[in-house]
């Protein structure tokens, strides 16, 4: 080829221009994210400069303040009408500030706050050498069982880096459902994933399992995000843009001016379909839908329980938010293509999650599978492709996340010599030894099972109703059947706790600090309130049920 052509190759794009106009950023509308990110950076600085003994307090303080402030900002925005009337696209079209994103951001922030409390809990483990310790490794770098580790423990080190990590993850999660172009989506995905990979590796007890969980999560996560990225590339190739709005237009086929290249790529559906499928796959991986679920049990089991709780709750919320936006904003034009596929995924997810859970013997794995089943239920709502569908999913996510955190918080309380006693056999007769804890856990289990008067039932009813109205009656029937199956193993745990004789060498129930108590209390409160009087929150979700284009 001629030099001119070569020259063109890298100059065409850049015509000479006189001045660069700065991008217009609506800082106010992005404030929640910005606050959290800022706080995270502050946290890093604290790690660098604040003396070790006071880091913990500083970090907890900063994180709490940041999360509360961010939540306040979300509320302010919502109150200001950004959720409904003034919903718009900010930051040069890369962030959508609308009902769903605000609702989900609020949920994520609250979940993160509650999760943070469990992170900060220091009463459960016996004090090592007079130092209160939390459930994270004294020094992640030191080899398990090595002298350095012992030294670290003796010195009373604690990994206070978890707090900034948490905040970074939260920042990613805040952006994820709000992302309005594929690039932001991808970046947000990585920003929320990478800190989680690390957090998984930081357990104080059972470190080998923890590290294994981290590796699995990391490798599979990276693998998935590679797929996502390739999908993004293909979508970009198809539409010539990464902005949701543009892609949607191209998909619908109503583009203002069509240049020949675009016309060419537009003609090529394979790009669109494969690309959409791959991006969706990346999101399905995050929500833990079958067949991309296999990381879930292992990671849930291996990760430090507070992290598991936080991850199970917040990640699902963020990921479903992103999924909703992708399907409702970008791909509504091709829903006849993706709905059947999603049907299949939802059905398989519900059934596999429910059935495999029956034979689990570890409480954390059990909850992992239950979370898979729930992902299936939520997908049923996603498929509805109606405003009700959106709002039902939003409500379900809110209800589910608090139950989850609460449940895992309870798991952290039941301990024996080796740390948390997660094997089910050890839970036998817990109801006799400490009725209150058992009762609370029973409440959570009943909520998972979707028994009326718990938030679980309201949510399940909402999504099934939406699905049925969307014409997915068979889906509802299968959902009902699988929840009958699922009910079995929740009940099994209750039987174990209340009706079987306690073991003499059974676990003890640690007396937690107000932090965990708050976490659990919030969980119970939300479960009951959303179960008995869900009206207000349903309205909220309903108002928030509209995406901005």
């Amino acid at each position, binding site marked *: 080829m001629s030099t001119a052509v070569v020259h063109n190759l890298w100059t065409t794009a850049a015509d000479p221009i006189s001045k660069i106009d700065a991008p217009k950023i609506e800082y106010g509308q992005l404030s929640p994210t910005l606050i959290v990110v800022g706080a995270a950076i502050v946290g890093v600085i604290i790690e660098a400069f604040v003396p070790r003994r006071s880091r913990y307090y500083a970090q907890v303080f900063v994180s709490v303040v940041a999360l509360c402030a961010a939540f306040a900002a979300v509320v302010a925005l919502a109150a200001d009408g950004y959720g409904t009337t003034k919903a718009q696209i900010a930051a040069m079209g890369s962030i959508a500030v609308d009902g769903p994103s605000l609702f989900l951001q609020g949920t994520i922030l609250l979940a993160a706050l509650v999760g943070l409390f469990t992170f900060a809990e220091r009463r459960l483990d016996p004090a090592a050498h007079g130092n209160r310790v939390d459930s994270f490794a004294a020094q992640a770098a030191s080899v398990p069982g090595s002298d350095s580790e012992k030294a670290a423990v003796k010195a009373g080190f604690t990994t206070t880096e978890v707090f900034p990590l948490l905040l970074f993850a939260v920042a990613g999660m805040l952006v994820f459902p709000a992302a309005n172009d594929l690039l932001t989506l991808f970046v947000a995905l990585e920003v929320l994933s990478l800190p989680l990979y690390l957090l998984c590796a930081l357990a104080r007890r059972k470190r080998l399992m923890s590290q294994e969980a981290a*590796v*699995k999560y990391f*490798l*599979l996560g990276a*693998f*998935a995000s590679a*797929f996502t990225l390739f999908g993004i590339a293909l979508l970009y190739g198809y539409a010539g843009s990464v902005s949701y709005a543009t892609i949607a237009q191209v998909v619908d086929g109503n583009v203002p001016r069509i240049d020949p290249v675009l016309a060419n790529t537009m003609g090529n*559906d*394979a790009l669109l*379909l*494969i690309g*959409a*499928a*791959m991006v*969706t*796959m990346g999101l399905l*991986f995050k929500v833990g839908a*079958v*067949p*991309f679920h*296999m*990381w879930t*049990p*292992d990671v849930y089991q291996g990760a430090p329980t507070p992290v598991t709780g936080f991850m199970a709750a917040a990640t699902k919320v963020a990921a479903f938010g992103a999924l909703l936006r992708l399907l409702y904003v970008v791909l509504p034009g*091709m829903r*006849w*293509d*993706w709905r*059947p*596929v999603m049907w*299949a*995924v939802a059905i398989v997810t519900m059934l*596999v999650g429910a*059935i*495999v*859970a*029956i*034979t*689990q013997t570890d409480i954390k794995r059990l909850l992992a599978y239950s979370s898979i089943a729930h992902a299936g239920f939520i997908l049923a709502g996603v498929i509805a492709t109606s405003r009700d569908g959106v709002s039902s999913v939003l409500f379900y996510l809110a209800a589910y996340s608090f139950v989850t955190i609460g449940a895992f918080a309870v798991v952290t309380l039941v301990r024996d010599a080796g740390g948390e006693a997660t094997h089910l056999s050890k839970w036998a007769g817990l109801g006799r030894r400490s009725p209150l804890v058992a009762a609370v856990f029973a409440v959570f289990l009943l909520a998972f099972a979707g028994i009326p008067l718990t938030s679980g039932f309201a949510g399940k009813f909402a999504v099934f109703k939406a699905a049925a109205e969307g014409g997915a009656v068979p889906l509802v029937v299968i959902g009902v059947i699988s929840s009958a*199956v699922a009910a*079995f193993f929740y009940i099994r745990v209750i039987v174990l706790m209340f009706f079987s004789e306690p073991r003499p060498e059974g676990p003890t129930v640690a007396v937690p600090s107000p932090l965990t108590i708050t976490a659990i209390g919030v969980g119970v409160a939300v479960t009951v309130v959303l179960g008995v009087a869900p009206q207000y929150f349903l309205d909220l979700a309903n108002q928030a049920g509209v995406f901005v284009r």
Partner: protein
Amino acid sequence: MENLIALLIAAPLLGAAVLLVGGRRLDAVGHWIGTLLAAVSFGIGLVLFADLLGRSADQRTLTQHLFSWIPVAGFQADVTFRLDQLSMTFVLLITGVGSLIHLYSVGYMEHDERRRRFFGYLNLFLAAMLLLVLADNYLLLYFGWEGVGLASYLLIGFWQHKPGAATAAKKAFLVNRVGDMGLAIAIMLMFATFGTFAFGPVFSHAGDTSEGRLTAIALMLLLAACGKSAQVPLQSWLGDAMEGPTPVSALIHAATMVTAGVYLIVRSAAVFNGAPSAQLVVTVVGAVTLLFGAIVGCAKDDIKKALAGSTMSQIGYMVLAAGLGPIGYVFAIMHLVTHGFFKAGLFLGAGSVMHGMNDEVDMRKYGGLRKYMPVTFITFGLGYLAIIGFPGLSGFFSKDKIIEAAFAKGGTEGWILGGAALLGAAITAFYMTRVMLLTFFGEERWRNRPTASPAEPDVEPAAEDRGTRAEPHPHESPRVMTIPMIVLAVGSVLGGAFFSIGDRFLHWLEPVTGHSEGNSPLSALTVTAATMVCLAIGVAIAWAQYGRKPVPVVAPRGSLLTRAARRDLLQDDFNHVVLVRGGEHLTRSLVYLDHTLIDGVVNGTAASVGGLSGRMRRLQNGFARSYAVSMFGGAALLVAATLLMRAV
């Protein structure tokens, strides 16, 4: 005057309530309370009777409405009583005989610590029986019907510590339930047909419906009658019912309750008249039963069982008569009343004998008792003459009329039925003579015999009697027991004549049941003569067999028929094998099925889901790379599916 009717029932009901709820503090006087209230009821009955007599024949139906029992749209069951000649007859019989037997029981049950309860049950029975005969609609009748069933259940099983008694009681109730089922279905049919089951409308509309319907109703009523009156095929319970105290056998299983079936048929005359084929069935049942009972009666060595057989047979006569329609209704009731007298008398006599013989029931261990218990001997003897129909005594009149009526049916049926009735008369004469001879004549077979007594364990818990079982000291029963026997004896002697002279009874009852003279091929005289001949033959054979030659204490093996008859003509064995055993097998296999099949299906599904879970669980093998494989495959599937969707 009508308002007195309720009191008839109220009195004994009150007694039952007081005695059963009252508790031990009434033990001392309980029996007198019971007797008194029975007598009160009888008194009221007499008053009402006098009142009825005072009215003209068509004014003799009194009704009393108490309250609405079951009010549901279209279904009106009221508690209304109807007192007419028919029910009046029964009222007098029930309360009269009832009072006497109450009195008798005072003596008979003297040593029983639960005597108060016994009288409570007796009063309960009286109340229920009166309700039965006074009810103005079939549902209320059903109430009384099951009520007497309950009373008989309680009284048969009164000595509950005897397993035999408890079983017999249960058997009686169950067999009766089968009959009750018939009554229930009959009532349903009536409701579906007439929209009501009150006597008045049903009888008046009986003509409006098809004969088929009437036949169905009639047959169902017959089924009920068979159950209550121990007619073939539902007769099996009566023999076992003799486990109960003898007064019970006298009152319930001879005089009153067992005749309720006859009452039902006669009461439902309007229905039966409209269903000739059903009537034929009734007559057949009656004829068969009267022979069946008689044959069984011949073979039994247990005095009460022998009498039970005879009861069966006598009721057979009544049913036969009732089946004949207007020709026979009156005589059925007449025989019912006379039978009430003499059979009750006979049972009381038997009770008195047992009382004197330490409750020995085997007649082969009696003999020559006439000089030890003269009163019993005479009253029993009179009853005996009455039942075999000795000229002049009550049985003579009533039974003779029935035989005449049977012939009067006319045609071959007439001959067959009449023949059966005659044959029955002969057999009756035989087995009653046998009873008489074995008990009161011949050598005293109860002397110096070994202790081993095949009889039931003693009925009275008083243990000291048992010791002296070896050598009984026959003695006359106390006054309180003999008086009722005497009264009943008088009744059985004079009753028939009193009723028949100038057809008193006929005119009394006719307005209710209606009556028609059949056209008998034989003159009344011929029939009577024939009856006398049969009677003589029966007595003669019996005398030849038991009067002249000594009777072995241990029963000889006997002919095939005898052995069959001893076992109720194998009818019980049939029940046992077919119903009891079969039922047991059925239920056992059902229990098994319920567990394996129905439960199994459910548990099976659960298990299979569990198995599936276990297998799917193994896919989670812990290797990151296999997870990646599933992801990769999943992604491939996703892409393929999406493309496919667009393709199709």
